[in-house]
């Protein structure tokens, strides 16, 4: 697949290409180049040394090509880029040379001959994918005297594919016809079509090529074999009658990687590295600045606790460290020679454990990517035997469970094998199964009944249970919204599955590819919008939504769902306070003078602060609680040895801030946190406490702003000020 490639693009750069046609605002050249840059940038992105690109310009003012001195008819043809690997720099250089010329002479068929010659010289007799792509508006006369038969024969002989893409060429298949076509163009279209037909090439109109650009291309990946060896039932080493079939297992699905962004840094001396990428720097940062970024590597240092060292930690040499594992909080060191002691010894194998019924398996237990198992190639015996297993599973509606060790020493996995039978192909598909440890034991209440605190079971007439009407409305809606065969086939009938796996592209993957390519080609332009094809499945199909309108309205009516206002979330009405299951009036108990919280115990600070605030009868108690809490936080920090008290300080701070926000009081907290920040940074609270400030920042426990949802409306702090506060 990663075969060598040699592709030459022939671009018509004649003066007529600078015009705009058919209502387009772009010149024909810019429009056509959208296609060519897309193709070339694809090659650049792949950065394969064996993919070679050449570019020839026709109808150029200059003439510069290897054939110009040998024969006539090669005037006004320029080789803009010799065949060779393409990189970003070469692409940039090329961009400056692609511009319309004030020239009408130059024969495109001669350019094809030149391209054939260049490819032949470059690729010799070696194995290559050879291709010539011609882009023209067909406005310049073609020298009809050229021997098309000879050219076509040459191309066939060298296995070169010719692709002709014409600006506004007629194409019945795509459904395009240009009216009032100049006769030269009509004749040229005829000639080019003739040539393409003679050499079995491709002929099309540019509009089609451009419209296809948005359709994501799937990167082909070589089949990856994950296992080859016997699939057994029983142990052939132990029992002679055990079953053993030679098989090969491949990936069936494998997550395609979304191109990751790398961490980079501006190179020293170019731009001010201490400044973030804002303001004046931004302009020059835009786009491809190949020279101004450097990659980032990571260096690791190691620290251990040492009560005598400043800050309680000290560096240790990497060389002095041994390898090991954590068992709970105990470090278990394992010597180099015993390093494999915790590894389970296994030998490569693929062996059936047993069989289950298909209907008794829930696909949501799947742990991930699927595989496929086929018989060993050219092994009729294996193929026959595997086929009998596949058909048996199919007939008995069963799956097999198998244990697989893909290589000696690898950890065993359990997979579920399912039969697949097609006209000319059979295999076993498999998905990985969870082990006992992979399934967490979470208990949830039942959905179709309510169990009350007193232990009674309610199965109807409860606000959390659907009424009969709601169930019926849901029934109708789900049936109406069926997309099992909503996609139209070639005849326009709805017979095909909508959103079939094969039709849905990974949005972020193609989006990143699109914008990176776009930015590389057009560094000065803003990021283009997301192509519609990537968002097609973000919403239900519009025509379907129209169709189900009445069912949906009925369902909305019967569902009678009410949105909870943003502010009310997490807050409760005064009457709806938490109570013990018994309904004991805990408030009354806590309001009794002997139980009332007045002096907050630092060891029970959060509950007592909460209760003091909750039962505060007047402002002074409220303020007193806040003041005590502030004191406790400061004392926790001051007494903290190293970072030992930070967790508690942050927890108290979080509760303090939450209580203040909830009670719509921002001033007390804001002045406290301002003061605290100052003290932390100035080292007033028992030493260097910058680390704690970073943690507070990370926990977003800064100023309470006047955002109506997350903050307190009466706050005098704007969200901008609050954001500024986090910056040091």
């Amino acid at each position, binding site marked *: 697949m990663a075969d060598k490639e040699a592709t030459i693009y022939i671009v018509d750069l004649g003066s007529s290409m600078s015009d705009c046609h058919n209502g387009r605002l772009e010149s024909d050249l810019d429009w056509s180049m959208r296609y060519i840059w897309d193709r070339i940038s694809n090659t650049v992105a792949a950065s394969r040394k064996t993919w070679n690109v050449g570019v020839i310009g026709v109808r150029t003012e200059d003439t510069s090509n290897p054939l110009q001195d040998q024969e006539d008819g090669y005037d006004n043809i320029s080789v803009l880029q010799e065949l060779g690997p393409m990189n970003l720099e070469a692409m940039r250089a090329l961009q400056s040379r692609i511009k319309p010329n004030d020239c009408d002479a130059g024969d495109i068929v001669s350019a094809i001959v030149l391209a054939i010659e260049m490819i032949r010289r470059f690729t010799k007799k070696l194995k290559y994918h050879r291709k010539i792509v011609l882009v023209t508006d067909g406005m310049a006369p073609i020298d009809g005297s050229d021997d098309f038969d000879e050219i076509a024969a040459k191309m066939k002989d060298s296995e070169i594919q010719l692709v002709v893409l014409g600006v506004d060429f007629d194409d019945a298949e795509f459904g395009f016809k240009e009216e009032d076509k100049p006769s030269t163009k009509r004749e040229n279209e005829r000639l080019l079509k003739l040539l393409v037909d003679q050499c079995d090439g491709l002929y099309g109109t540019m509009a089609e090529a451009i419209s296809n650009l948005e359709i994501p291309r799937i990167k082909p990946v070589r089949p990856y074999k994950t296992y080859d060896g016997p699939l057994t039932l029983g142990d052939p080493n132990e029992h002679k009658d055990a079953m053993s079939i*030679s098989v090969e297992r*491949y990936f069936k699905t494998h997550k395609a990687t979304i191109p990751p962004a790398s*961490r980079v840094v501006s190179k020293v001396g170019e731009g001010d590295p201490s400044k973030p990428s804002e303001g004046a720097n931004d302009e020059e940062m835009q786009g491809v600045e190949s020279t101004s970024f450097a990659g980032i590597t990571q260096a690791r240092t190691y620290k251990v606790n040492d009560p005598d060292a400043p800050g309680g930690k000290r560096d240790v040499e990497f060389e002095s460290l041994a390898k090991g594992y954590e*068992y709970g909080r105990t470090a278990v060191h394992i010597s180099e020679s015993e390093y494999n002691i915790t590894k389970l010894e296994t030998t490569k194998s693929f062996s059936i454990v047993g069989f289950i019924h298909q209907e008794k398996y829930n696909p949501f237990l799947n742990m991930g990517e699927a595989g496929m198992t086929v018989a060993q190639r050219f092994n009729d015996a294996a193929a026959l035997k595997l086929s009998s297993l596949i058909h048996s599973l199919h007939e008995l509606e069963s799956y097999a469970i198998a244990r697989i060790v893909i290589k000696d020493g690898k950890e065993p996995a359990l997979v579920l094998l399912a039969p697949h039978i097609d006209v000319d192909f059979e295999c076993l598909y498999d998905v990985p199964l969870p082990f006992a440890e992979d399934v967490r034991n979470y208990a949830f209440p039942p959905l179709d009944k309510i169990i009350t605190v007193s232990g009674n079971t309610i199965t109807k007439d409860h606000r959390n249970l659907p*009424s009969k009407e709601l169930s019926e409305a849901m029934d109708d809606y789900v049936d109406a*919204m069926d997309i099992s065969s909503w996609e139209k086939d070639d005849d326009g009938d709805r017979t095909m599955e909508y959103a079939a796996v094969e039709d849905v592209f990974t949005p972020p993957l193609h989006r990143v590819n699109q914008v990176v390519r776009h930015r590389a080609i057009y560094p000065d332009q803003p990021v283009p919008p997301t192509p519609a094809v990537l968002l097609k499945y973000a919403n239900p199909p519009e025509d379907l939504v129209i169709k189900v309108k009445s069912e949906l309205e009925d369902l909305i009516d019967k569902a009678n769902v009410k949105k909870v206002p943003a502010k009310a979330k997490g807050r409760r009405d005064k009457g709806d306070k938490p109570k013990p299951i018994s309904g004991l009036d805990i408030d009354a108990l806590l309001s009794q003078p002997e139980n009332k919280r007045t002096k907050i115990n630092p060891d029970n600070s959060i509950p007592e602060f909460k209760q003091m605030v909750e039962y505060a009868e007047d402002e002074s108690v409220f303020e007193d609680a806040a003041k005590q809490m502030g004191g406790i936080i400061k004392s926790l920090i001051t007494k903290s040895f190293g970072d030992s008290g930070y967790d508690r300080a942050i927890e108290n701070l979080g509760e303090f801030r939450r209580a203040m926000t909830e009670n719509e009081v921002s001033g007390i907290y804001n002045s406290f946190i301002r003061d605290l920040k100052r003290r932390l940074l100035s080292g007033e609270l028992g030493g260097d406490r910058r680390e704690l400030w970073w943690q507070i920042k990370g926990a977003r426990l800064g100023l309470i702003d006047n955002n109506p949802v997350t903050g307190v409306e009466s706050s005098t702090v704007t969200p901008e000020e609050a954001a500024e506060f986090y910056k040091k």
Partner: protein
Amino acid sequence: MADRADYERKDEEEEEDEIGEHDYKAQKDALIFAIHVSDSMLEAPPESDDKKADKDPAVYAALKCAYLVMQQRIISNPKDMMGIILFGTEQTKYRDEQNLSYPHCYVYTDLDIPASEDVKALKSLVEEGEGAGEVLVPSGERFNMSNMLFLANHMFTTRAANFGSKRLFIITDDDNPHADEKQIQDNTAIRAKDLYDLGAIIELFPVTRGDSKFDFSKFYDDIIYRDAVVDETYAGRVTSSKSGNGLTLLNSLVSNVNSRQTAKRSYFSNMPFELGPGLTISVKGYNIIQKQAPARSCYVWLDGEKAQIAVGETARLAQDSARTVEANEVKKAYKFGGEYVFFSEEEQKSIKQFGGPIIRIIGFKDRPLLKFWASIKKSIYIFPSEVGYVGSTRVFTALWQKLLKSKKVGIAWHIARTNGNPQLVAIIPSREEVDEKSGAKSLPAGLWLYPLPYADDIREGPEKPTLVRTTDQLTDKMNMIVRQLQLPGAAYNPAKYPNPALQWHYKILQALALEEEVPDKPEDGTIPKYRAIHKRCGGYIQDWSRVADDVLGQLQEQKAIKRELEDNDTEEQPRTAKKSRTVVSRASPGGSGLSNAELKEKIQDDTLKKLTVADLKGIMTERGIDVKGLKKADLVERLEQWIDDNA
């Protein structure tokens, strides 16, 4: 060093996946076991000749249960803390002193990530009763429950201040420890409210004997909170643990504790779930399925008094100048053709902006359209929540019932978090599954977001291999085998298959940490029961093999005839005239396409050497035989050897 770089890369990839919801609280769990030590809890079960009968007094069953949980948590939640309080004891102990604030409470294990000493001490107590005479002695005077709660409060406050989950498990057989003591009851209620306000949850695990009932209303309903607003997923009270029905008290307790053991952490909450334009409800998501792997290795510093884990810190260096790079200098750029393509921060954000968190149904499909192989990663369980939309639960339930009834799945566009990647998911309903033996729920009822692969995630298979289809007779023989080897219940029960590699890893680590003898043979429940297979199916497999050989023989003959016919054909007709579809072997570049059987014939006729070197190499690479640097004679020899061994 290479493995470390790998880990870091992995981290970045998994970043999006693993981070749950977070505010300033750490996503960690602190769990305290509080075990009641009393005469009745120490009472030995009645004598019995039954081998399976209970031998443990309740206190021991509780401690064994705690011991099991401690070992499990070291594997599954290595960052979480655990502690054990014994209450009602004669002795009092908290942090190495006779702490008089908490009389008759004995902190056996202080709240922390368990260390090997903790495991060791607990092990010797439950297995050998070491120290039991000192520790497991009930107090002569009545203890005060409020003290125990306040002690737990103090342990949480000082050790696990910012943990997102704090839980106190009380194991007792006394449903009314403070009858007629109003003052103590009140104090306990207040201490319980403190715990509630601290964010700690109390779970009660009652122990009963025979037909006796545990009456919550006498005392415990005053200290246990059920806050429907905060936790809609509260599963109700724990049933009482007792021996009987073939279950020991320990089994019963373990099963009950296990059902609550993992702190329920939501993967997302208040997620809008749009059933159609204009109809949205809110749901919570949970990672019920989660791959459990051994914790990565670390570096240990051995030069101090005690072995210590060295904590790594990463500094970033610029590749060109090797200078240290500050966090605010770091920018992100995409590699393109060997160079960097840069976007401003705002652009960077806009690129991958596909909308906010959502589950949006785009239609429904028949269940069979969900292809078996359309699997790409684990599913997320969702459960309704009234927090965002009142009425969510009934709508969710109606949808769940409809999907079950009509065997349909929803198809939805799902974004798990802000700036997250969109994923197309199938919404699959599940019925509640109950383990028949223990009665514990193994899978909850609800809906699952089952990620579907994208077109980009589908891999091409190998070139279509030779199809040799089975015969009915042969399939029948195989059917016999498949029928014989059905797993219990004809279903896969994950609980029956612990991960052997994971278990072995920790077993060895535990032995090393506790300085015990290292076991030499791993337990691996995933290895097929070879002997049983042999016993039950040996004969059937032999039958099947015989029939397969017969069919193969016939096939060989047919092929030979066909080849002859074809050879005749080619003499009479031009080559291109006809190509039979049924021909099994097919010429491909490299001149191979010979089946093993055909090669075997060639060996017998000694015509293998007539093939060209290129042909030989083609044939051999297809079979994965190494051909590097071999001369023709060697190639022939190696191929012959391979055919002998393999065909």
